């Protein structure tokens, strides 16, 4: 294949994608069988997961080698930028679905179940009168319409304890990564490394606090996934956010290593920027979580 200098880099055929598809298939096929109690489900799932990690390692390794070999011009860099930006947009829409479920439940479903037929989306109060006439509306739900199926939590999460602290932690991690970016622009490696290290540590601290909170919720508050719509939205939203923080932290660690290996300079550091965009996105999602899940 001919590459004129300055022309758009076209990669040669690659085996990573097909291995990635095999990995995804094993993960999904294994997970579904796991859910059905089939004994070879979990092993298949983990084999798939291991294969996926291997593919990600190999694929990114390949891309990094190409990047270091100087095959990527400005235009290629722009493609990656557009790609990452719109990938983050799709993630925003994914969270949007769950926030939508939260708002709908709070505004409409709970009110309707409590016999209020004036809400915007809900219409009928019949469920209330015919099935659960005793149900009272309140948020967070401390009594579910049918407590025998969905036992309610004893207590709800308090916003101004650990969650507020976590907000501070994530916000300052957004600051430290920006500070690292300044170092990148000024080509100061130690500055970058310190900034990234601080960000990673703040991310890990956040995750530890979050884990502590989950344990408290499960053991002390009896607040679980099965505690009705409050527990459902609480754990699904914060859980997916926590998953994204975990992924973001892993990506930050990779970037930290790459910065240590001198992969970046002030001109050429899109990988760093992509991860920092992702980190800011995770940050903003948390702000919404804090306001709508914990606080209001």
């Amino acid at each position, binding site marked *: *294949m*001919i590459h*004129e200098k300055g*022309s*758009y880099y*076209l*990669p040669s*055929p*690659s*085996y*990573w*994608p097909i291995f990635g*598809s095999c990995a*995804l*298939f094993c993960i*999904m*096929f294994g*997970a*579904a069988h796991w859910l*059905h109690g089939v004994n070879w489900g979990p092993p298949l799932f983990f084999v798939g997961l291991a294969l996926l990690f291997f593919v990600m390692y190999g*694929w990114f390794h390949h891309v990094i080698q190409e990047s270091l070999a100087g095959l990527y011009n400005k235009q290629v860099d*722009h*493609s*990656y930028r*557009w*790609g990452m930006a*719109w*990938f983050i*947009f*799709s993630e925003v*829409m*994914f969270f*949007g*679905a*769950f926030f*939508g*479920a939260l708002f*709908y*439940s709070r505004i409409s*479903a*709970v009110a*309707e*179940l409590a016999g209020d*037929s004036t809400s*915007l989306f*809900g*219409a*009928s109060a019949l*469920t209330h009168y015919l099935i659960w006439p005793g149900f009272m509306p309140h948020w967070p739900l401390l009594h*579910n*319409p049918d407590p025998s*199926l*969905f036992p309610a939590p004893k207590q709800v999460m308090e916003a101004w304890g650990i969650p507020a602290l976590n907000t501070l932690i994530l916000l300052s991690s957004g600051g430290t990564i920006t500070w690292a970016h300044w170092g990148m622009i000024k080509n100061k490696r130690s500055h970058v490394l310190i900034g990234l290290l601080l960000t990673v540590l703040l991310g890990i601290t956040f995750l530890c606090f979050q884990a502590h909170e989950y344990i408290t919720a499960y053991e002390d508050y009896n607040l*679980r*996934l*099965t505690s009705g*719509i*409050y527990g*459902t939205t609480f754990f*699904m939203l914060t859980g997916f956010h926590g998953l994204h923080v975990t992924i973001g932290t892993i990506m930050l660690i990779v970037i930290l290593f790459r910065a240590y290996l001198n992969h970046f300079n002030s001109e050429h550091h899109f990988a760093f920027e992509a991860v920092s965009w992702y980190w800011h996105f995770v940050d903003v999602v948390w702000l919404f979580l804090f306001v709508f899940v914990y606080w209001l």
Partner: protein
Amino acid sequence: MNSIEHAVDQHAPYNSQGFFSKVTRWIFTTNHKDIGTLYLWLSLIMFFVGGAMALLIRAELFQPGARIISPEIFNQMTTFHGLIMVFGVIMPAMVGLANWQIPMMIGAPDMALPRLNNWSFWILPFAFALLVSTLFMSGPAPNFGWTFYAPLSTTYGPKSTDFMIFSIHLLGLSSILGAINIIATIFNLRAPGMTFMKMPIFVWSWLITAFLLLAVMPVLAGVVTMMLADRHFGTSFFNAAGGGDPILFQHVFWFFGHPEVYILIMPAFGVMSEVIPTFSRKKIFGYKFMIYAISVIAFLSLLVWAHHMFTSGIPLVSELFFMYATMLIAVPTGVKIFNWVATIYKGSVTFETPMLFAIAFLFLFTLGGFSGLMLSIVPADYQYQDTYFVVAHFHYVLIPGSVYAIMAAIYYWLPKWTGHRYNERLGQWHFWLTVISTNLTFFPMHFLGLAGMPRRIPDYALQFADFNMIATIGAFIFGFSQLLFLINIVRTVRGKGPHVSNQVWEGAHGLEWTLPSPPPYHTFSSPPTIDECK
């Protein structure tokens, strides 16, 4: 293009000899033309799979009474027919067209992210393996319709539902990656001088479709994730006993579902806007308005989802809002129809197969649009909801809309891709059989629906017998006439037809027609300059 590249650029990546390298060429490929071909073949195969399921459904409905398949199988067939036709046929076909055409139309060397492009395709066979595997498992396959409403799919869903959920996750991932690639390509890889307002409308329509995909596929992933959690982890998104609401499912699903229909139709608009000017030998009428119209349609499509839920008990205020918003879509759609007709007006029109399909599109898609308007009227919808009228409506939109456009596109561009003319006579036979049988199949369904025949029912009252028999006969004619399509494609791909020039069609404009037919494996390795071509 310089001479060195000519010597190197073959129609295949390298001399692929031996079975193994022939297979790996297709599995490892990062070439937009190869990947486009893969998408299109997958789509064609799934078209016959999904079509066979439809024929099974129609065979059961040939006469009243339980005849061929059990109600359980019938329900599985309606579910699979819908899922396969939407995700396995129309979407891959449109993405295949995008892969082949967008780089050639904007003067790009390839898609912006070629390896990701390969992955977008190669996720699909695995996703469908996951989905179709449920048909061979003990216990029923998914049997609640392609809309998989909760609680049918949660509390009462068969075990196999989980495989469908994971399959949809994979399909969503594939679409999202594909959409990202298309956006990056169009934003970043246009040849110098190819400004946005010079881009072919096909490229425009795909750009907007890609945004819609990014906006709604993650929401689909979200809703199936909620289903999974409700089914296995004790959450209560769709369970009123825990404070949730099954209606929430419908809101989230249709927030995806309605724009999804536009994802299926907007690339078809793009195809029409290429085919009609070519065979009318005129420029498209109202280029800018075509683009504004697609943008407005895409935007409105995000605000009309609850027109699928008029009978679910949503309040009057919402019903009114969604009714008027839905009706509003008729305005930009009308602009498009008007512009296509105005393009044909006073053109020197010839009627090759692509143009025939385009004209059938104009008439029959408009008909489907009108029945859509009827359905958008709330009090009328109370009558039509869940009847065969709805089936008639969306099949008129999807077959003469999306499927005819795909067929027109194949007949239109296949000579460019292969260097050979398809068999025109066979094409005309295919067209007339298809268009007559489409109407034979679906037109009577309007009457069935208005008379009250419910959809998704394996048996029906005696008074519906005649129209059902006609519909079944039409469906079988439709199904078997598609074999002509298959034969024509295979013949052309194998080089049976006469050679074509670079221009192929006398009235065609655009960069792809400046390339040789078939185009070399790599095109526009150095970008062309765009001057007054448009």
